């Protein structure tokens, strides 16, 4: 991976709003990140942190009334968030593929998998029916479906969950997109199957040079797969950086808590570690840093800045963290933040 290459995907100051009768909810608030070609960016966070919405926004499939209220999304330097429907449709599947959470419901039950794959191929590439079918068979072989030339004529219900997710992956890859949004691709699967699917995603990403935006709440999946990771909290990015750094020396108190909450087999603790409280509802995001009511380090930042002013991403160690502990204009003992876990 090289972070110096021109980014494939740039998300700049993205803001996603849901107008409701009781006012506008801001589900994703001013987030920015890049994905380099071939890079795997993990996006991790609790339910409702805005990670899936970010993925949906990138592929242009935000469900109304959700809408992009501000910011830009650029693919290969070209702005795609304001494209007309038909233009964006041509990008979907061709340049940005998608994998959804539940393979059991992602496939149309009434069509053979072969029909669904060839349909996708022929939508984007100018090939004949037989060529598309040959391509579909080799795609199925590539994702590890045994006897692909026979299974291509099977219906989705004739596949197991893991096999269906392989089919879904082959569908996402059908037109060789440069970026895949994988939204919780393993959450609905058995743990033993999860590893296989993750390995497959990683392998295919490497072989095709496909970048992946991997949305999940499973730190284990991120650790195994991602090059970099973005930790989201209440619609904002709390911390973003190389995966090893974020895991081993997290800089944001939330990330610290998150890593501390992962139980390991060696631990003899009776109780599981947890972060006190819960993520705020979208209707009641606190002023200042959204994490401040749960943060144990609020008192380490002078002038109560955490409760009044919202922190932006600041360089912190080898990562970037949205936390006033890393502000350079105040004198805080930054060393204290280094992994109290």
């Amino acid at each position: 991976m090289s972070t110096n290459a021109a980014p494939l995907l740039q998300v700049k100051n993205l803001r996603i709003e849901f107008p409701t009768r009781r006012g506008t909810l801001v589900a994703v608030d001013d987030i920015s990140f890049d994905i380099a070609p071939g890079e795997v960016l993990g996006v991790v966070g609790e339910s409702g942190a805005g990670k899936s919405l970010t993925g949906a926004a990138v592929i242009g499939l935000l469900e109304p009334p959700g809408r992009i209220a501000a910011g830009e999304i650029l693919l290969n330097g070209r702005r795609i968030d304001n494209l007309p429907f038909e233009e964006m449709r041509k990008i979907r599947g061709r340049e940005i593929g998608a994998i959804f959470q539940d393979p059991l419901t992602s496939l149309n039950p009434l069509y053979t998998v072969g029909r669904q794959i060839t349909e996708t191929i022929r939508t984007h590439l100018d090939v004949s029916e037989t060529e598309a079918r040959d391509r579909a068979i080799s795609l199925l072989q590539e994702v590890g479906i045994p006897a692909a030339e026979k299974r291509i004529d099977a219906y989705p219900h004739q596949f197991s969950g893991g096999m269906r997710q392989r089919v879904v992956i082959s569908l996402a890859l059908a037109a060789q997109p440069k970026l895949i949004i994988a939204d919780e691709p393993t959450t609905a699967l058995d743990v033993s199957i999860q590893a296989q699917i993750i390995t497959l995603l990683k392998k295919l990403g490497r072989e095709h040079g496909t970048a992946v935006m991997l949305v999940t709440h499973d730190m284990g999946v991120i650790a195994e797969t991602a090059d970099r990771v973005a930790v989201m909290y209440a619609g904002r990015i709390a911390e973003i950086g190389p995966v090893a750094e974020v895991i081993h020396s997290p800089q944001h108190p939330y990330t610290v808590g998150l890593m501390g909450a992962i139980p390991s087999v060696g631990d003899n603790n009776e109780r599981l570690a947890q972060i006190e409280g819960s993520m705020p509802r979208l209707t009641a995001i606190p002023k200042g840093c959204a994490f401040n009511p749960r943060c144990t380090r609020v008192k380490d930042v002078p002038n109560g800045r955490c409760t009044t002013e919202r922190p932006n991403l600041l360089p912190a160690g080898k990562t970037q963290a949205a936390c006033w502990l890393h502000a350079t204009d105040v004198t805080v003992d930054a060393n204290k933040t280094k992994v109290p876990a």
Partner: protein
Amino acid sequence: MLAFIIRRLLQSVLVMVAVGFIAFSLFNFVGDPVSLMLPPEATQSDRDEVRKSLGLDEPFYVQFGKFVGNAVQGNFGISLRLGRPVSQLLIERLPATLELAMTAAVIGLLVGIPVGVYTALRRNSILAKSLLTGSLIGVSLPNFLIGIFLILIFAVWLGLLPSFGRGDVTKIGLWTTGLLTVTGLKALVLPAITLGLYPVTLIMRLVRSEMMEVLRTDYIKFARARGLSNNAVHFGHALKNTLVPVITITGLQLGGLIAFAIITETVFQWPGMGLLFIQAVQFADIPVMAAYLCLIGLIFVLINLTVDMLYYTVDPRLRISGSAAGGH
């Protein structure tokens, strides 16, 4: 598949036996046929004689067995009112009713499905909203009222279409059809619209709600994420998934249309089975009523059977048993 058909056929036979039993009971409960047939001054020995000659002195199950035996051969006796074999009367009237009901069903599908799809896809447009409101009228207005309005407008005021009858008919073997002559077709328009309005609104509302349900599913989202065109998503993926319930309802509706064409046939004096039945009821013409009951029962059973077969062609999950997907 074969086992399924056999099982369904056996069930159908049971249903028909039950219907036959009810039809048979009509004879016993609607009145004593012997006293209907004999003059009031007949003696008890006359009565016993007639009773014996009609086989009415035999035990109940023997009578029922004979009734079923005759019914299977299409023999329902002689109409008390018209003095002709009931089966012959029904065969004469059946084509008129079937043509009317089929036309109404075709109108229901041809109008109901596109309008339903439209109102689902453009659910916020003014046209969709007014169609939806209008459909309430179709659901709630009684058939005879619509028929009378149509007669008033198109037959009385505008004089465009005939208000009653079936026009000129052509005879093809046993079947008489009104579809081949201009007057026959013109006569079909108003009754078919009257009868078809309810299925139109029903199918439209059904397609709309099913379609909106399907459009929310993951596989539609995924189909969009694959960049398929709107047409492919809406008509290739979504519409086909709405068809299973639509087939069921349309099938049941068709049975209903045939059975309840009675009112429309009465309003338009359409020479179908419904009109025959109404006249039979007024005259307590029990053989006709019993035969009509059995025939309608048979039509319902056949339609249900066909509908179940159609599921197999639409939904592969039913077609292939012993699938890999279990226990989720």
